């Protein structure tokens, strides 16, 4: 087995990748195994090649660096490289391996790389770090405007307006859209907090519904209701869900 640190670069600008390549070349113990120019490529390469370390840009075509992280099956060390300090600071708070604010000096790159190699001694920690990193994004107050999902090799970006309803399924959430259903490894609580509260209502322990999709609300049994959706599906509405809904349907 190769002892070298395997590195992947994900950045849409060639010049930005070049500078990283130049810096990496100075280190004999580091090997660049892939260069990706967007998030889709990044997901594929990282899942296929399982690198130890990823240099990741945040603003890229198709999906952002943060969204890309949600689709990874492995947990490499992540060093963000970005011109946006608002994201980088956020990443730093939660113990991402490091962040590099563009443009960065060779010394600064060295420092980040050393940190990553140190951390690699204990992979458990790094796994924890990336989970925290992803979860940290969860904790922000920012509302979602899109959700990225992956089934097999296909990555789909779903605008939140396209979500008809969400259904809890064990550790996953099933996202129902006109174009089909997608499983996402998140909690109902996460979606409840990150979808706009005046557009998406938690109507049941296992259901969140897009307000625009509700066609009709009818009494099912004593004190429990059902919602008929425009797509034809019927979903249960609990007592507390009904009182949540009533506020918006007035």
């Amino acid at each position, binding site marked *: 087995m190769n002892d070298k640190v395997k590195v992947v670069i994900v950045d849409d*600008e060639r010049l930005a990748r070049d*500078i990283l390549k130049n810096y990496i070349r100075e280190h004999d113990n580091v090997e660049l195994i892939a260069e990706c*120019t967007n998030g889709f490529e990044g997901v594929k390469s990282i899942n296929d090649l399982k690198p130890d370390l990823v240099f990741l840009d945040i603003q890229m*075509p198709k999906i952002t660096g943060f969204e890309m992280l949600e689709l990874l099956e492995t947990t490499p060390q992540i060093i963000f490289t970005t*011109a946006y300090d608002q994201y980088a600071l956020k990443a730093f708070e939660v113990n991402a391996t490091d962040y590099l604010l563009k443009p960065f000096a060779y010394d600064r790159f060295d420092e980040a790389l050393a940190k990553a190699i140190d951390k690699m001694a204990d992979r458990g920690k790094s796994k924890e770090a990336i989970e925290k990193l992803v979860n940290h994004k969860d904790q922000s107050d920012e509302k979602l405007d*899109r959700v990225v999902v992956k089934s097999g090799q296909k990555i789909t*970006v*779903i605008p939140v307006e396209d979500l008809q309803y969400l259904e809890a399924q064990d550790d996953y959430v099933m996202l129902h859209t006109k174009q089909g259903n997608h499983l996402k490894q998140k909690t109902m609580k996460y979606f409840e907090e990150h979808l706009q509260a005046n557009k998406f209502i938690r109507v049941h322990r296992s259901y969140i519904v897009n307000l625009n999709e509700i066609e009709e609300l009818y009494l099912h049994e004593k004190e429990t209701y059902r919602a008929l959706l425009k797509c034809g599906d019927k979903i249960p509405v609990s007592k507390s869900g009904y009182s949540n809904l009533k506020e918006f349907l007035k």
Partner: protein
Amino acid sequence: MFNPYVSNRNVILIYGAVWILIGLIHFTILFNVLQIDFEYAVWDSVIYNFLFAVVGLSLWFPSRYITFENYSVSRVLLNHFAAALLVTGIWLFAGYLILIFAVKVDKTGYDFIINTLLVRFVTGLMFYVIITSLNYTLIYYTNFREQVVKESKLNSLVKEAELKSLKYQINPHFIFNSLNSISSLTISNPTKAQEMTIKLSSFLRGTLSRNDNQKVKLKEEIQNIKLYLDIEKIRFEDKFDLVENVSDECKETQVPSMILQPIFENAIKHGVYESIENVVINVDCKKENDYLRIIVTNDYDPESVPRKGEGIGLKNIQNRLQLIYNQDNLLTYKKENNKFIVTLYIPL
């Protein structure tokens, strides 16, 4: 606008008091100086002055609508001269009728009215002139005050817009990403690094030295945009092309400075940043009636999901155009066949 004499209690009280005073002077002249019969002196002063007090209120309207802004000075004077003759004539005749038929003055009174007709006529004209002058003073004073308020409002709006556009004009990420590209080029291609540094400097200098109220030739505006696009082109390695269709005549037209910059920034941000395909940005400019029509078109990836902040730049331009030209329909945009099309009309 309401008649300010009637709509304000204090004004109408003062107006009434002044007329009572004039009436008293009128009476004193008749009774004490000219030694006219007491009863007749009372009727004469009360009726004539009361009548003019009422007529005087309505004089507000000719003053309001015959303004120096709408008519030439000679027209205004002519109008008022005719109105003065008419009003005074009616006033004298009405007073005469009331005194003869309602109060039933005797022969002495009748003779007195006829003999003093000229004096009365001149007095009537004088009243007309005084009231009209007061009206104009009031109108111009009110307008002046409104103007001051409006101007200060406009000023604060301009200031606000300036601050806003300062915020939007220079996108810090653009600068940092460009600096990163330069940093990279210093290793791989120092000549290009130097070229980019100079372009970035020229662009920043051009942007910083302009202010919002200024107008520049379209030519200069396009020049600055080209600098911006050149820099982005180095960053994105010719991932886009600019197709320019602007006649020399249009290039000489004055446009508000930095009005196009945000449109191109949008085209880059939503067209080029979000796409992995090659993008064409089109700028087309034409004179149409009394407007300069500028159309900026860019390809965009229909699959890219719009992110927050879309349209802020365009809103900003809309606000500025409204502030400058007082028209809110000068900027429109639409998506059509995977193209984003912004149409801008600049009044010539």
